[in-house]
C-alpha cells in the first residue's frame, strides 16, 4: 500500500501514513491533539483543519460551507489521505467562529442616526441668568423659567419642590450661570407630558460630559440593567442578576398569589427594587464612577418587563392578571419619577415604563418587537422571547399577533438541579462521544464548571438524545455500559462532570426530572408558536425569518435547538439570535423618542391571542413533548441523522 507524508504546521511535525488514513489518525500519530468532542463522528465540526496543499478525500463536510471547503477546510475525522498533504491546524476558537450553527448574540450598536440634540427627550441647557438687583426683583424661579423660555424656548416647565428648595443656592453658587437638565416630554399613550426640570447644576457643564440613563428589563427570573450615556448613546456597562423575587415563587402566577397575601406585594416590590438597585450600583462601578455620584446623575430610566413584573414594581395589585378574564390594572403606566418608584438614581429622574398589551404579553414584548425590527419588515417574521414565560409574536409590517405560554425558567438555568445563569463557570456547550458516552464541555470563562446554563442544557439534551442516553420520550436507557448513567436520588441521571472537576466539589448531573422539565419548556414554546401561526393560517414554511430573544447564554447552537425540537426545522440562515431583546428595546426607547413612539404603535396594533382558549394548544403541546417531536416529518433533518 502506498504511503504518504502528512505535514502539520502545528509544531512542524510530519508523519508517514498509508493511503486512506484519516487525518485525525495521522494527527494522533504526530502527537497533535485535534479536538474531537463528538468522538470522531463527523457531527460537531470541531475537528476542522485546513488543507494547504495535497490530495485528500472528504467523506463528509457537514457544517462546512462551500466557501470553507474552497478555502481547504476539512473535517479531520472524516477526511482520508490520498497523497502528500500539508495541514494547518487552526486554533479552536477560530474554528468555532466559522461554524454556521452557532449564533452569537447580535452586537449592540448605537443606532447610526442617533442625535442627542434631536432624538433625546432629556435636554441639557446652559443658562445665563441676569443677576437680580433692587430694580429687578423677579423671584428665582421666575427668573429661571423666563430664561428657559427666552433662551431655549421651553415653556411650560414644571419644577418639583425638592428642586425649589435648592434653587436659590445653586443659582448663586453658579453665579447666575447654571446648567439645567430637563425632560422635554415623551408621548406616553395619547398625551404629551409637559417639560419637567429634573436637576439644576451650578456653572456651565461641558457638552461632552455624559448624561446617564438606565435601560432596565425586569424578567420573572432575571433582571438586567444597562447604563447608557445619553449623549453618545453608548452602553457603558451591563449587569444582570436573578430577580430577588424568585424565592417567593418561580413563575408569575405564584408571585401574584404571594403578592395577594399578608402584604406580600410590598415585600415583592422591595425585593425587585433591591435587585435593581444593586445592579445599578454594579453598573455604576463598572462605568468607573462612584456609585453615589453616578446614580445621582442618572436622570432617566426606561423599564421593560412583563405586565406582572411592572405591576409588582409599581405596587399595583396584580390579582386580576391571574383571574379570568385576565385584565391588567394598567397597560401603559404614566411617566413617574425615580423617587416615586423607589429606584436609586436621581430622585427626580424620569421613569418610563413601556406599554404592554395584555396580562401575559407585556412591555418586554413590545420592546422586544421593536428591538427585533419585525414591525418594519415585509417578511413574515416569528419573534420569540424565551424566558420564564415564552412570548411569541408573529407578523410583519402589516399585522402582528402575540401569545404567551408558560414555559418555565429552565432555559434560564433555574428549576434544574444543576442549572445556573449564563455567567462564569457555566457549562455552555456539551458534546458526548457516541462510543463511550464520555462528555466534552465548554465552560464560560474557561473556569471549572459550577453548573449548566440554558444553551448548555439545550446542547446536553440534544447530545443525550442523539447518543441514545435517553429515548425520544426522555426515558434514560439504564442498560448502557457507562458509570455516568446511574440511579440518583431523583431517579436516573447522567453525570456530566465528576466532582473532582467541578467548582462546587459535587458531581454535575442532569436528572430525569430535569429532562422532563426541559421537555416541557421546549414543548410549550414549540406548541406556542405553532398554534399561534396556525390560528392565523400561517404555516411554518411561510415564515421567512425567525428572531430569538432570551437569556440562554451568549450564543445558541441552532442545530442543537432544532434537534431537541425547540426551534422549527428551517434553514439555519432563517434564524437570528438577539439575546435579551427586552432590555435592547428599552435601550432604544431610552435613547430615541421615535423609538419610544414606535413601541406605543406596536402596542396598539398587536393582537393578543389567548392560547388556552381551546384544546389546540394542549394537543400541540402533547405532540411536542417528545424528541424532537411526535410528528417526525416536521424534523426531516433530525430524522435524516438517524436514518444515515
Amino acid at each position: 500500500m502506498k504511503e504518504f507524508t502528512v505535514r502539520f504546521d502545528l509544531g512542524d511535525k510530519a508523519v508517514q501514513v498509508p493511503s486512506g488514513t484519516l487525518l485525525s489518525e495521522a494527527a494522533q500519530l504526530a502527537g497533535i491533539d485535534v479536538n474531537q468532542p463528538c468522538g470522531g463522528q463527523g457531527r460537531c465540526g470541531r475537528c476542522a483543519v485546513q488543507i494547504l496543499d495535497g490530495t485528500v478525500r472528504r467523506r463528509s463536510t457537514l457544517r462546512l460551507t462551500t466557501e470553507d471547503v474552497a478555502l481547504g477546510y476539512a473535517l479531520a475525522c472524516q477526511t482520508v489521505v490520498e497523497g502528500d498533504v500539508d495541514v494547518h491546524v487552526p486554533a479552536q476558537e477560530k474554528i468555532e467562529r466559522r461554524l454556521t450553527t452557532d449564533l452569537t448574540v447580535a452586537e449592540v450598536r448605537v443606532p447610526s442616526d442617533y442625535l442627542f440634540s434631536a432624538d433625546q427627550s432629556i435636554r441639557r441647557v446652559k443658562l445665563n441668568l441676569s443677576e437680580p438687583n433692587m430694580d429687578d426683583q423677579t423671584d428665582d424661579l421666575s427668573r429661571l423659567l423666563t430664561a428657559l423660555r427666552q433662551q431655549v424656548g421651553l415653556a411650560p416647565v414644571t419644577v418639583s419642590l425638592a428642586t425649589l428648595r435648592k434653587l436659590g443656592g445653586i443659582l448663586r453658587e453658579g453665579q447666575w450661570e447654571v446648567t439645567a437638565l430637563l425632560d422635554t416630554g415623551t408621548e406616553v399613550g395619547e398625551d404629551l407630558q409637559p417639560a419637567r426640570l429634573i436637576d439644576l447644576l451650578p456653572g456651565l457643564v461641558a457638552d461632552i460630559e455624559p448624561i446617564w440613563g438606565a435601560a432596565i428589563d425586569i424578567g420573572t427570573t432575571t433582571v438586567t440593567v444597562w447604563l447608557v450615556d445619553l449623549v453618545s448613546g453608548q452602553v457603558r456597562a451591563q449587569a444582570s442578576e436573578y430577580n430577588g423575587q424568585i424565592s417567593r415563587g418561580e413563575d408569575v402566577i405564584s408571585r401574584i398569589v404571594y403578592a395577594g397575601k399578608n402584604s406580600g406585594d410590598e415585600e415583592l416590590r422591595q425585593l425587585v427594587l433591591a435587585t435593581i438597585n444593586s445592579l445599578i450600583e454594579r453598573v455604576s462601578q463598572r462605568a468607573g464612577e462612584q456609585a453615589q455620584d453616578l446614580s445621582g446623575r442618572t436622570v432617566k430610566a426606561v423599564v421593560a418587563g412583563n405586565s406582572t413584573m411592572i405591576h409588582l414594581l409599581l405596587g399595583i395589585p396584580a390579582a386580576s392578571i391571574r383571574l379570568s378574564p385576565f385584565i391588567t390594572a394598567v397597560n401603559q403606566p404614566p411617566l413617574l419619577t425615580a423617587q416615586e418608584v423607589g429606584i436609586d438614581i436621581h430622585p427626580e429622574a424620569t421613569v418610563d415604563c413601556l406599554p404592554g398589551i395584555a396580562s401575559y404579553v407585556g412591555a418586554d414584548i413590545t420592546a422586544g418587537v421593536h428591538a427585533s425590527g419585525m414591525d418594519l419588515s415585509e417578511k413574515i417574521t416569528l419573534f420569540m422571547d424565551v424566558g420564564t414565560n415564552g412570548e411569541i409574536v408573529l407578523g410583519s409590517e402589516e399585522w402582528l399577533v402575540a401569545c404567551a405560554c408558560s414555559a418555565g425558567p429552565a432555559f434560564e438555568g433555574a428549576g434544574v438541579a444543576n442549572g445556573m445563569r449564563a455567567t462564569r463557570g457555566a457549562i455552555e456547550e456539551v458534546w458526548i462521544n457516541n462510543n463511550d458516552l464520555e462528555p466534552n464541555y465548554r465552560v464560560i470563562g474557561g473556569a471549572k464548571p459550577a453548573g449548566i446554563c440554558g444553551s448548555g442544557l439545550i446542547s446536553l439534551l440534544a447530545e443525550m438524545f442523539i447518543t441514545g442516553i435517553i429515548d425520544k420520550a426522555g426515558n434514560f436507557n439504564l442498560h448502557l455500559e457507562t458509570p455516568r448513567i446511574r440511579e440518583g436520588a431523583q431517579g436516573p441521571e447522567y453525570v456530566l462532570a465528576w466532582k473532582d472537576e467541578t467548582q462546587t466539589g459535587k458531581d454535575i448531573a442532569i436528572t430525569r426530572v430535569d429532562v422532563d422539565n426541559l421537555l416541557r419548556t421546549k414543548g410549550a414554546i414549540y406548541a406556542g408558536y405553532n398554534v399561534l401561526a396556525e390560528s392565523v393560517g400561517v404555516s411554518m414554511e411561510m415564515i421567512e425569518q425567525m428572531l430569538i430573544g432570551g437569556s440562554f447564554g451568549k450564543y445558541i447552537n441552532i442545530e442543537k435547538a432544532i434537534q431537541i425540537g425547540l426551534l422549527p426545522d428551517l434553514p439555519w440562515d432563517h434564524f437570528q439570535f438577539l439575546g435579551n431583546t427586552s432590555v435592547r428595546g428599552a435601550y432604544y426607547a431610552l435613547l430615541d423618542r421615535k423609538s419610544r413612539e414606535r413601541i406605543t404603535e406596536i402596542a396598539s396594533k398587536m393582537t393578543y391571542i389567548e392560547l388556552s382558549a381551546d384544546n389546540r394548544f394542549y394537543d400541540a403541546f402533547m405532540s411536542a413533548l417528545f424528541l424532537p417531536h411526535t410528528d417526525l416529518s416536521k424534523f426531516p433533518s433530525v430524522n435524516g441523522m438517524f436514518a444515515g
Partner: protein
Amino acid sequence: MALSGIQIYKLLPQTNCKECGFPTCLAFAMKLAAKQVELSACPYVTEESIALLAESSAPPIRLVSLKSDGYETKAGNEVVLFRHEKTFYNKPGLFVKVVDTESPEAIKAKISAADRYVVNYVGIELTVDGFAIEAASGDPEKFSAAVKLAREASKRPLILVSRDPSIISAGLKALEAGESALIHGADKSNWEVMAALAQEHKAALAVISTDLETSADLTEKIRGKGVEDLAIDPDTTGLGAMLTFNTIARRMALKKNFKPLGFPIIVFPKDLVAATQAISKYAGFVVIDDFKPDEVYPLLVLRQNIYTDPQKPIQVQPGVYEINNPNSEAPVLVTTNFSITYFSVANEVEGSGLPAWLMVCDAEGMSVLTAWAAGKFDAERIAKSVKGSDLASKVSPKRVVLPGHVAVLSGELEEELPGWDVRVGPREAVDIPKFLKEAL
C-alpha cells in the same frame, strides 16, 4: 369555504379604531372566523366585504327546526365530518314512534311514559324530543285521532309518518296552531302534493329514497315549490347502507357545497345497534320503535357524548364521589371537575382497590394546574367544598389529600380547614395507587 382570521382581516378597514369592542381589527377578524361575533359590530366594513363574508359563512347543511308549544328540536348546521375538527352542533332529536293501529290506551300510555321520562347524566337532565305517529291504518280519521291523542299526552314536536297525502293532511289538521311538524314523507310519486301540504302547514318535509340521486332530485324539485325545510331519509335497514348514504350526503354538502343534499338526515333504525350508528354517524332525527329506558338512557348518553364540544370538555358534577365503598378511615382526595381529570383520578383510585372519598371541586371545568393558574382552584374554594359536604362528620382521622401540582396550597388549606390533616399527593394520577398504599 370558511375564511381564516387573516383572510377576513384583509377585508376589514385595518384602522384598529376599537369601535367593534376589540382592540384591533385582527382580533375582531379572528372572532368573526370563530363565529363568535356579528360582522355588523364594525361600522366601517365595505359593502363588498360584507357580500364576500356573507357567502363564506352560509351553513352548508340547512338548520331545520321542529317546533311545538314550548319545545324546539333543531337539526343541521353541521360543519364537519369528524367531531374533533370542530364540533357537532345540533344533537339529533330522539323520537319515539307510535302506530295508529295500536289502541288509544296503548298509544297514550306509551307517549305519556316517554314524555315524562327524565334521566340525570352528570347533572344534566336528558329527555326524548318528540314522537313519530305512523299511519299503519290507512285511515285518515284514525290517524287524525292518534295525532290528537299524542297532543293530549305530550306537547313535544311530532313527525307524521305516511306517504299518503290525504292521511298526512288529516294529521296536519289535527295539530295545534303555530307548531311545525315534520312530514315523512315525500317520494317520487307524491312529492308535489306533499310539498304543497308542507307549504300550507309550515311543516318540514322528509324525502325518502335509498339512492342519493333520487334524494337530490326530490329536494331540488320541492325547493322549487318553495319548501326549504327538508330532511332526507336513506330508507334502509342495513347498517352498511345507512353509513354509506349518510357519509356521502354529509360529505357532498360540506366538501362540495352541494345544496340538494345539504339537509339533516332522518333515520328509522331497526334496532339499538342501528340507532347507535345513527347517532354517531350524522343523523339529525332518530326515530326509535320502542320506548325502553334501558335503551333510551344509553342512547341519550351517547348523543350527549358525541355532541360534546371537543374544544370544551365536559365537566362533572362537583361533589363527593365514593370510590370502593369508603369507610370513616378512608382519605379525602381533592380534584377538579374537569372530566378527564376526574375520570383519570377516579379510575386510578378504583383500580387501586383502596377506598377513598373523592371531593370534586367546581373549578369551572379546568384541569388542576390550569384551574390553579386561573384562580379557580385555591385553598378557599377547596375548603368551601369540604365544608359544604358532610365529610367532616363522616371521616376520622380527617385527612385531605391535595393534588401534587398544587402543593403550594397546603399551608393555606391548613389554615382554612382547622382540624384537618392536609397531605400532598402525587402530581400524576397514575401514581395515586402507590401513594394510597405507601403514603397513607
